């Protein structure tokens, strides 16, 4: 239960961090941000990185910005930053609502938004948020900077499009329409435990009908994603039990559920049906 030895690097600037990362990445170097996933994995010795590039002392990585269209979340913004709304937009309330489902309070004091995206656990609430809201991930390395759309970013369980020498420097989330509604629901066996299925939904109402629906499902497949079939079942319909059940059924029928020794595929499919319906129901409150 003790991590294996490693060499720690403590850059003070982003440029310095990227240089060190470029140098040590080929020798099993990893980025250490909040450490709330990486350190337990190291304690179990499932990961034994030779180098850690600790970005906790890099200046200006803990910034949240917003230009009226996009919310920019820096590499070291911790989950706890979202305990209160970070932007005067429904997105602020959405992030606050989702944040309180992430692990536990002391974990949220250390763990980071971008770290969660880089780790890409299938059950991650922030990964679901990024997928549902069509986030853009900004990856930086000594080779330059590139923007990766959520749909191209997630590549499977704990696997992303980030190259080993790239730092996830920022995540960009589009602000929601001022009148947008959102709902979130997750199922886990214990408070703070990994979600076995979770759903985030957003939409607006135009002339009494649902428009621009986003329905995301996480924790059920290797990566979170928007479910086009569920969105089609909502758009143009009046919000209410009938449309919500149809969307939940659509999501459950197209999901390709993960299975493990505790959870059969069919059970997870049932959970998806439940969390999508509940997310839609609580979007009305």
């Amino acid at each position: 239960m003790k991590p294996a030895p490693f060499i720690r690097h403590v850059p003070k600037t982003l440029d310095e961090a990227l240089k060190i990362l470029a140098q040590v990445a080929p020798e099993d170097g990893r980025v250490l941000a909040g450490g709330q996933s990486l350190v337990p994995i190291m304690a179990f010795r499932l990961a034994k990185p030779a180098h850690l590039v600790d970005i906790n002392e890099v200046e200006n990585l803990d910034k949240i910005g917003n230009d009226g269209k996009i919310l920019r979340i820096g590499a070291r913004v911790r989950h706890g930053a979202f305990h209160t709304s970070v932007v005067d937009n429904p997105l602020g309330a959405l992030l606050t609502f989702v944040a309180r489902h992430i692990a536990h309070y002391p974990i949220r004091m250390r763990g980071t938004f971008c770290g969660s995206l880089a780790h890409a656990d299938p059950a991650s609430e922030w990964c679901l948020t990024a997928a549902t809201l069509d986030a853009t991930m900004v990856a930086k390395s000594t080779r330059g900077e590139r923007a990766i759309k959520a749909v191209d970013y997630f590549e499977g369980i704990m696997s992303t499009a980030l190259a080993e020498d790239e730092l996830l420097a920022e995540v960009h989330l589009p602000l929601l329409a001022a009148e947008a509604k959102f709902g979130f629901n997750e199922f886990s066996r214990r408070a703070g435990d990994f979600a076995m299925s979770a759903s985030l939904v957003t939409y607006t109402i135009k002339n009494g009908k649902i428009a621009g629906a986003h329905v995301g499902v996480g924790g059920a497949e290797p990566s979170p994603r928007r479910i086009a079939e569920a969105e089609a079942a909502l758009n143009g319909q009046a919000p209410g039990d009938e449309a919500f059940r149809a969307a939940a059924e659509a999501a459950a029928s197209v999901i390709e559920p993960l299975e493990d020794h505790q959870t059969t595929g069919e059970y997870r499919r049932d959970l998806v049906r439940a969390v999508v319906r509940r997310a839609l129901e609580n979007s009305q409150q």
Partner: protein
Amino acid sequence: MTDKTNITLTINGHDHAIAVEPRRTLVDAIREDCGQTGTHIGCEHGICGACTVIVDGEPVRSCLMFAVQAAHKQIRTVEGLASGDTLHPMQQAFMDHHGLQCGFCTPGFLMLAVGVLERNPDISDDDLLDVLSSNLCRCTGYQGIIKAVRAAAIEMRK
């Protein structure tokens, strides 16, 4: 690779000059290198909360931080709660409301509750319940702990 780094940990206002490997967790350094054994080690992977301490005002799992990351930060542990013979209101409330039996989880619960209430004195009962779900206790069934923390919250607001 296992070179030790000289650091200073400031625990409850006292400086401890120690030499640790980068992989040394904060909780191991607090206990083994600084001799402050009030903080307990449970699961060592962030689940149980027994090792919760307050670092720069924030309750954190000290098994999920490396000691080198806490150099020059203000660390508070259970040893720093009482002033002389007078218990902290949280400690007194745990005694008054049967918030402990074996005591193993108690330092973690105390630092969690004190840390959160100092940051957010007017936290709602519901939110407080959510906070207390952070740590594990296998004796009390939690009801005594919840009563104690709610009572201490009122006391601490005075």
